[in-house]
């Protein structure tokens, strides 16, 4: 009932009941999702391969052997066979993880930083600013992402840095669009109005009230883009616009092995399998994160 404390003496600070925070809830829910946890483990293994690739690999990734070209899976000493120059496939797949993951994740991270800032500004400002930013972003949507990446890489020239730049540019528009829509949603909630009514400026409101509510969904969306980014990066390498031979990278390996597809189809498919496993793991991870974050009140 009406329990108006007439004299609220200083409350001892020790006995405050804490409740589980939002992120604690999310991680509990995530841990219960077996598929997502499995995907996370796969990704951890991939990261381990990327970091310790050189130590794990049984051979030198660049050591060619004219006598042992295109040996089949199970060939003694080369458990996953050899490629068209007689280099050990297992070694090159392991060592290639580093570059392939790097090419997949970096553009998404950069695009996340830039795109979410653009989207949050557009979403919070609304009105003419929103229209200006979002219509500019829409221009990029006119091109299919693969074509846009190829065109940008083609203009900038081949090389790792340039393909990273072009992939980043490709991923800014979708991330900005998602950021804009979640920010617009949050902005219309009463607690943002209450914050405005307390006299806070736009920057403070975005920092305290908007970021915490929008970064999660944007992050989930960005994780799902990592798979796309890996495939696009592999595609650029395949076309000779990304990583240069003899550097091991899955897309590039797919390219150089395509001539052997009739001789050793399983060997030729191997880098594709790695790309497939990695991208599906990132997709399942982002699915799991999204489900875990959708906590109904």
């Amino acid at each position, binding site marked *: 009932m*009406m329990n108006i404390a007439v004299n609220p*003496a*200083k*409350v001892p600070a020790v006995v405050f009941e804490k409740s589980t925070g939002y992120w604690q809830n999310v991680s509990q829910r995530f841990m219960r999702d077996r598929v997502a946890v499995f995907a996370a483990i796969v990704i951890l293994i991939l990261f381990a391969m990327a970091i310790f690739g050189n130590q794990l690999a049984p051979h030198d990734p660049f050591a060619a052997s004219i006598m042992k070209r295109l040996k089949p899976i199970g060939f003694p000493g080369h458990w996953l066979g050899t490629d068209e120059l007689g280099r050990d496939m297992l070694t090159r797949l392991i060592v290639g993880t580093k570059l392939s993951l790097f090419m997949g994740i970096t553009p998404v991270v950069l695009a996340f930083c830039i795109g979410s800032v653009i989207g949050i500004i557009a979403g919070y400002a609304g009105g003419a600013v929103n229209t200006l930013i979002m219509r500019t972003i829409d221009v990029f949507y006119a091109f299919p992402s693969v074509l846009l990446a190829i065109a940008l890489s083609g203009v900038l020239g081949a090389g790792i840095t340039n393909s990273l730049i072009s992939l980043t540019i490709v991923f800014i528009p979708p991330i900005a669009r998602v950021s804009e829509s979640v920010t617009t949603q949050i902005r219309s909630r009463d*607690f943002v*109005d209450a914050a405005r009514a*307390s*006299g*806070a400026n736009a920057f403070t409101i975005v920092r*305290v009230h908007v970021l915490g509510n929008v970064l999660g969904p944007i992050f989930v969306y960005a994780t799902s883009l990592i798979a796309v980014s890996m495939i696009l990066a592999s595609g650029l390498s395949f076309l000779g616009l990304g990583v240069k031979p003899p550097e091991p990278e899955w897309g590039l390996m797919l390219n150089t092995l395509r001539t052997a597809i009739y001789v050793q189809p399983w060997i030729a498919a191997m880098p594709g399998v790695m790309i497939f496993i990695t991208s599906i793991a990132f997709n399942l991870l982002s699915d799991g994160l999204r489900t875990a974050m959708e906590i109904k009140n």
Partner: protein
Amino acid sequence: MNTHTTQSMDITPHAHADVGGPTQPLLMVQDLIKHFALPKDILGRSSGVVRAVDGIDFAVRKGETLGVVGESGCGKSTTARLLMNLTVPDHGDIIFDGQSVGSKELSLKEFRRQAQMVFQDSYASLNPRLTIEDSVAFAPQVHGVDKQAAIDRARDLLARVGLDPRRFAERYPHELSGGQRQRVNIARALALQPRLIILDEAVSALDKSVEAQVLNLLLDLKEEFGLTYVFISHDLNVVRYISDRVMVMYLGQVVEIGDCETLFESPRHPYTRALLSSVPSMDPDNRTEEPPLSGDPPNPINPPSGCRFHTRCVHAESVCSTTMPKLVTDAQGTGVACLMHVVRSGHSAAPLSEQEAA
């Protein structure tokens, strides 16, 4: 306020100077207008405006509770948002204790420190990612109170609104019931030690029993902190219970304003009468004789000419569709916008002389 306050009471009433003295109304609203443009058609032509708030004038006296009633869509909530400048008015002045809001003497930020708002949706008005003490402590921090002092103040206020800070301060909004959340919202509104609180359907979403508790809490807080309320609601019983004066709105205009009991006992405007008769009476001898209000209010995009109520009014005559009655308030702040109360307006029921009108 910058010192580390160990003693709780910074929540003293009248933290802000009373500028104009007791007779100066706390809030004066003059000719407030807000028209929302409808989306333009494909050729960029405007397809009209919604006259959400169409020229309203009223005053809120110091220490009173002004109830605002009307049907859905009559502009009550828009008025609340205009008062807080959450929606920017097209036209009109808001004068707070004799100082124009947005002028040199009273910046918008300073005004927002002295006037706060409580929203209807108790859940949407709390940030789901912040603990409730952080939500309450946000506003003081915006105004330069340091973090620890603001948290202390938030805990004191939570205790004041009947929420034990030891149990609730570090909880998240989704763990609280609707009534508890609305208490948090009230605590947040109090955190800046305001003089005016605008309550926009603040108890409408609550259960009847919880509603009664929150209403009593509001009355207690009002006395304790010397607050002035603008209480917006569609629930006439609640408004009658809490208000000192009542303002009736119809289609973006004020049709009647006056002392609460007088207005409820002897309403003068036909719309007020119809609105009051729509409340079911418990007494069978007290049947409604006037036909209850039928149909929806007309479209505010193209409001009726003349008196806006003439399309639904049982007393409407031809003059009502051509002449718009103006709300004229007397010294007691009582007024009605109806041609039946204007001397020689042309309506058959209109008084013929000032004496007859009085």
